[in-house]
Every structure is written in C-alpha cells, then in structure tokens.
C-alpha cells in the first residue's frame, strides 16, 4: 500500500564525493516488500522545488522501522536534501512501483547484479534478500572514478564484488560489460540498474539466453501512474499505442518488455 508519511532522519552521511546515505525512520518500512521499489520525496515544505524526487530504496530494516536511500547531490532538490540534519522530517510517499522479482532465481543458483553509478543503491537490498534465500550473488559495479565509489565493502560481504571505473582509478578500467566478458562470469540471471546505454548492452548481450531484469529511470511527475510523464513504448509495439509507465508498471522490467 502507498503511504505518505513524515519520516524522521536518523542519519545522513556523505559516503563518497557528493554521494549521501540517508536513513529515515517511520511506519513506511512495514509496507516495503520488494527490493527495487522507490520512494518519492518532497525535499522542501514550500512551493519550490515543487515536485517530489524519486529515489530508490537501498536498505530496509523492518526491526528498527528504518530504511536507507543513497543519492547523488546533483541539482537543487538533492542539494536541499543533503543539507538536512538528523531529527528533521522528510515527507515521503512510498513504496512505489514494482521491484526486482526475487522469485525468478532459485536457491543454489547464481545471480549477477550489475549496477552503474547511482543505479547501484537498490541492488544492495536485492543482494541481501537473494543471499538470505540461498542464492549466490556476484556484483559488478561501475562508477566514473574512485571518488564516487561507495558500498564496495558492504557488497563484498554478500558476495564476490568487481569494481570498474571509467578512468581506471579504482578496480578495472572500463565498463561493467568489460568485466563480465573478461572474467568469463557464469550466472543464471541478471538484475541491473544504471544508465540506459548500460542496460541496453546487457539486454543485447544476455537476454537471449538468460533471464535479465532492468530498472529504468525517467523524469516523473506523480510517481503513482496518473500523469503519463514517465511512459515508454513496449518492445513488441515500438511505434504504436501500447505503453508502460516506469513509475507504476516499473521501474523494473524484464529485458525485452519495453523499448530502451
């Protein structure tokens, strides 16, 4: 069920250059039942900025009634968010959308989790749930440069973790797809979130013989499926009238379902 709640900040830390980890407390975690869902956050009480900001849920801690998001301080909204202190409240709408299907992989099988930049956060909760289920996880995480790498250690605790940076300052130099090829990784399923060119490459290279699930990003208005801001074509009808809404049908889609 979608809830709107004033959640209290319990911690806010800059964990890499301009990358913030924000933990919030409230009733909301009780309704969070799928990794890969997102929340829609109002960063100011006033009229400006007006719209909410979509941010993925990176960690759910039901026992503590807390959840964590990881975001990049980018434009106005995320800058305002980054200035908030523990104790302050944030207006959160969520959980929204459909996340990664954990049931698509069995105990004992291997899942490859591929993240790019600020697409990495939702993979953390996903990885935790997969490991809990007895699935072997491999992470391949791509970043621009060393300064913006985050959660390497946290992911390493859950499974083998490869880092790639565009400039080679951390991990291997290049893209996540290079790592998958060079390391000759074997896996039963791919879950991914990150920039569209990365998702497209994974879809082209692996969806013919693997299950592949991709989390998309699009500019949003409502976040709940009412405004038609975030619409994309379905792959079987690329110029027609059939569509999916990233906010409510997604953000996670099976590769081949929508036109990337």
């Amino acid at each position, binding site marked *: *069920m*979608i809830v*709107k709640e004033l959640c209290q900040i319990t911690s806010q830390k800059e964990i890499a250059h301009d990358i913030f980890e924000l933990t919030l407390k409230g009733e909301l975690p009780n309704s969070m039942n799928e990794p890969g869902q997102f929340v829609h956050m*109002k960063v100011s009480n006033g*009229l*400006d*900025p*007006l*719209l*909410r900001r979509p941010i993925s849920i990176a960690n759910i801690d039901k026992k503590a009634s807390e959840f964590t998001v990881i975001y990049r301080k980018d434009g106005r909204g995320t800058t305002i968010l980054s200035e908030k202190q523990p104790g302050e409240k944030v207006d959160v*709408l969520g959980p929204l959308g459909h996340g990664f299907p954990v049931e698509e992989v069995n105990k004992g099988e291997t899942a490859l989790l591929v993240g790019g930049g600020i697409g990495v956060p939702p993979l953390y909760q996903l990885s935790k749930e997969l490991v809990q289920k007895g699935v072997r996880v491999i992470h391949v995480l791509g970043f621009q440069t060393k300064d913006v790498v985050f959660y390497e250690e946290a992911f390493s605790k859950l499974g083998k973790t490869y880092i790639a940076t565009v400039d080679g300052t951390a991990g291997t130099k290049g893209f996540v797809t290079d790592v998958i090829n060079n390391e000759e990784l074997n896996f039963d399923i791919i879950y991914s979130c990150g920039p569209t060119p990365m998702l497209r490459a994974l879809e082209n290279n692996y969806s013919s013989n693997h299950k592949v699930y991709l989390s998309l990003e*699009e*500019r*949003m*208005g*409502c*976040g*709940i*499926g*009412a*405004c*038609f*801001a*975030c*619409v*994309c*074509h379905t792959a079987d009808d690329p110029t*027609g*009238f059939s*569509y999916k809404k990233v906010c*409510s049908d997604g953000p996670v889609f099976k590769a081949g379902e929508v036109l990337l």
Partner: protein
Amino acid sequence: MKGLQVELPGLSLKNPIMPASGCFGFGREFSDLYDLSMLGAIMIKATTVEPRFGNPTPRVAETSAGMLNAIGLQNPGLEKVYHVELPWLAQFDVPIIANVAGSTEEDYVQVAREISKAPNVHALELNISCPNVKTGGIAFGTIPEVAKNLTKKVKEVSEVPVYVKLSPNVTNIVDMAKAVEDGGADGLTMINTLLGMRLDLKTGQPILANKSGGLSGPAIKPVAIRMIYEVSQQVSLPIIGMGGVQTAEDVIEYFFAGASAVAVGTANFVDPFVCPSIINELPELVDRLGVDHISEITGRSWKTFEKSNHRA
C-alpha cells in the same frame, strides 16, 4: 458537507472540489488512496477518437513553483474510455466531467456525441486549449470565431451541458469567453496551461523532448485569478476555476475572483491526498467568512460589498 454543495449546469456537486483533467488519469491510481465518492466531481483525462501515445520523453520539467508538461494528450481512445474507464468509474458516487479533445471539428463532435451518452458523464469539458498537440487544440482556443463555431457544433450533439476550457495563451480572454457564450456554452473552465520552455544548462537544449510545454502549478495562479476576475464580470456563465490550487485558502481566492467551483491539477502530484485535505478544511474557512454557503462568496472581489448580514 454543509455549506459546500454547489449546483451548476448538469452538475449537482457535494462540494466544489474536483481533480483537473490530465492530473488524475481516470481515477484508478487515486482510488487506492481514498474513496473517490468524496470528490465533488472528476474531470477525466482528455479523450480523443483514436488512441494517442503522446509525445516522446522527457515530458515534464520542473520550474520555479511549477512545472512544464508536454504529455501530448496520451489516452486510450474513445472506445476504451467509454467501455472500460467510465463503467469502472460508475462504482463511485461522483459525477464525471469528460474532457473532449481532437484535431478537427469532426473529432470533437464525434467524441462529444458518444461520450455524453455515458450515464455517469454529467458534463463535457471542451478542451480547445491544449498547447501540446501540433494541430487543432490551440487554434480552436485562440480564434474567437473558431471557438464559437466549435462550441455550437458540439452543443448540437451533446446530451449533457458543455463547459469550454479556455486557454490563457490569448491577448483577450474576455473575447474568447464571450464567443463561446454566444456559441451556446453552458459554462467555462479556466485556465489551461501557459506555454513555456526550459533549457538544460549543460547542453543548452530544451529539457522537454517536445521543446515547449504547458506551465502549471502555483506559479500560474495569479494569471488565472486575474482572468477569472475579468471574465466573470463580462459573461453570465458559471466558471470552474483552476491553476495552482494547493490549499483551501486558494479555493476561497478563486471564489472571490468569480469561480463557482475549483479544480486541482498539479497539486495532486505533490500530494496525492490534496483533494480530500482541501475538502476537509473548507467548511471552517467558509464559516469564518461569516456566510452559510460557499456560493455566496463567488465574485466578492468585484461585487458591491454587502455587509454580511446573511445570517439573520
């Protein structure tokens, strides 16, 4: 609720608050959040004869206290709206105002004729003011003679009262209002979005794939108030006002300007519970104004001020 009922052509409203067209889909998403029967009415998404996919994304861009949209009238088409969406909405005790769009006169006439037959459609809202479609829409909304003729044609076929939605993208809004009044309109809804554009500071290019889009939200409220203030003094049609309404106070301001009911658009995206909140807050505000009924304050900004002895 006491003091909030409003009677308008075709519409018997429990309260004067309704979601604006395009900002509420066909109600499904919001029905999971609250009981739609508490709304005064629902203005559904624009319906065209054929299904429309709309524009490429990005379709929205935020602006100071507002947003631009260029959705491009995406909708499933008359057939599906009539046979699926409207029957689904019939489970709620709420009148539907069907937003009718098209690119030719024949389109408008066909949608109006068919959709007005649906039992829960109590009025039409003729969308002659959408800035986001290449043909039609905006021309119908900016040339008084064209708007008048279209209104006439639609009135001939519609089984329910017809409200015409005015565009603010004109030099003289009163001329437009008078023209559609001459054409036989039963009411006005105003305003639609203002044409605008935003550029990306990194690329220098427009953010919206459609380049320009319609500005909505609190930023446009003063424009709407001014236009309703002018129009309500010059025509005798009831006005459903809209543009940046976020609070019950905003609603009162619209009534003062000359509106008889108010629609809430963009605010539904900021707070999906905004309509119920406003409805709950209104009675106290009306009470504080010293009137028994909200309709008593319509046009207070320009009506000769009568000392409020209404409570005798």
